[in-house]
């Protein structure tokens, strides 16, 4: 087993999804950590087996012909009374002109609704939001993801008057944006993130060489901020201020993160 806080990183590294800086850090770590190095070798062995065991299931002969035959012909579309281009995702009145398909579609719609209900209840027993521990994992994963090349910033500017208006029309609230360069936390910019099924705005600050992501979304949202946590080498702290939820994630120490939190609440 890899070090508990490195497991996800080892997998992301193994899949080529880690940015250069973090890849180098992990490689350095694995030089001295036999368990993480072993974890990586196990993954390589497993992948080797998966890729050389003829597991891929190509379509059987004849399936392509059957699929082609079942697709409505061009002629039947031309004679349909509705244009196809605006067909909504689940549409019942533009089915191919075959009674069987229509009946099947009703079954499919009923099944889709059933699945939606069952899955919703199963996945989100607490409809007010996900468990906060899961959410902490999600913000850490978002933060790690943002550190990959090209993902950190959607709007790059140290000017709060550039970053704040950028969010207009992109999220349905106006996050407070402040540059804190004089206090040692220069603003780098912002980006959009997706957290617990809603869009959130993310402000990116720098602390020495470290990157800090601050997720911001309104207090009246069903998404409650995760509890403060330390996991996988990242600190997570949350607070509420001026009608907004804030959640800061970074590999800087917790004191620095708390300092930023206090600055943002002034």
């Amino acid at each position: 087993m890899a070090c508990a806080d490195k497991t996800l990183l080892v997998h992301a590294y193994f899949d080529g999804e880690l940015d250069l800086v973090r890849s180098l850090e992990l490689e350095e770590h694995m030089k001295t950590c036999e368990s993480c190095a072993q974890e990586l070798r196990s993954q390589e062995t497993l992948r080797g087996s998966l890729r050389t065991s003829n597991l891929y299931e190509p379509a059987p002969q004849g399936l392509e012909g059957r699929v082609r035959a079942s697709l409505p012909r061009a002629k039947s579309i031309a004679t349909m009374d509705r244009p196809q281009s605006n067909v909504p995702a689940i549409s019942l009145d533009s089915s191919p002109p075959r009674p069987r398909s229509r009946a099947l579609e009703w079954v499919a719609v009923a099944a889709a609704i059933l699945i939606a209900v069952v899955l919703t209840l199963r996945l989100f027993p607490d409809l007010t939001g996900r468990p906060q521990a899961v959410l902490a994992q999600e913000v850490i994963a978002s933060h790690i993801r943002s550190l990959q090349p090209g993902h950190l910033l959607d709007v790059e500017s140290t000017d709060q008057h550039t970053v704040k208006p950028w969010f207009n029309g992109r999220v349905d609230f106006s996050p407070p944006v402040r540059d804190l360069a004089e206090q040692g936390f220069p603003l780098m910019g912002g980006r959009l993130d997706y957290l617990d099924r809603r869009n959130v705005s993310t402000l990116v600050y720098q602390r020495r060489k470290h990157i800090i992501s601050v997720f911001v979304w309104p207090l009246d949202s069903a998404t409650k901020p995760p509890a403060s946590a330390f996991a996988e080498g990242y600190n997570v702290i949350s607070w509420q201020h001026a009608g907004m939820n804030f959640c800061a994630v970074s590999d800087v120490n917790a004191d620095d993160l708390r300092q930023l939190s206090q600055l943002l609440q002034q």
Partner: protein
Amino acid sequence: MAEEARGTDDPGRFEQVVLPHLNAAYNLARWLVRNRHDAEDIVQEAYLRAFKFWGGYQGGDARAWLLKIVRNTSYSFLERKRPADQGEEFDEKIHVSESAEPDAEAALLQSSENQMLRDALERLPVNFREALILRELEGLSYKEIAEVMEVPIGTVMSSLARGRAQLRELLLVMRDQEMRSGLRR
């Protein structure tokens, strides 16, 4: 890419852009429902659905777009036919004997027959199996998998990590059982 910029009403274009991904569609369906005949039905139904949604296709990766439809069709099928599949969970309490050394483990993995690997994959919870198939057999990136499964990228990352860990454990358990039954014979 500009050629694929938007779906059109032209069925010829649909066949050109979407039909080439038939193998990917079948492979995913086959691994999700674990049955050849059902997989064929699902692929046909998914293509019909895809054809209907073709007007809403906004361009981008046609394979991921199609796989998302195949996946949803497969899950509808599973829910309808075999509700038990959805809740099925690998028992994380099953653990192999502590004596398994890393090197022995690697040797076991390396020598495991195709059939055992296949059985182990089929016994994984469906969402982990799906992430692994998309990553290891289809070669999709985290972002593409997230698109197909409609989950955040962080979930893809943790599903793969947990799926791989469970797969390795399952393989060890199965190998262990085989050795025991071999001894009894």
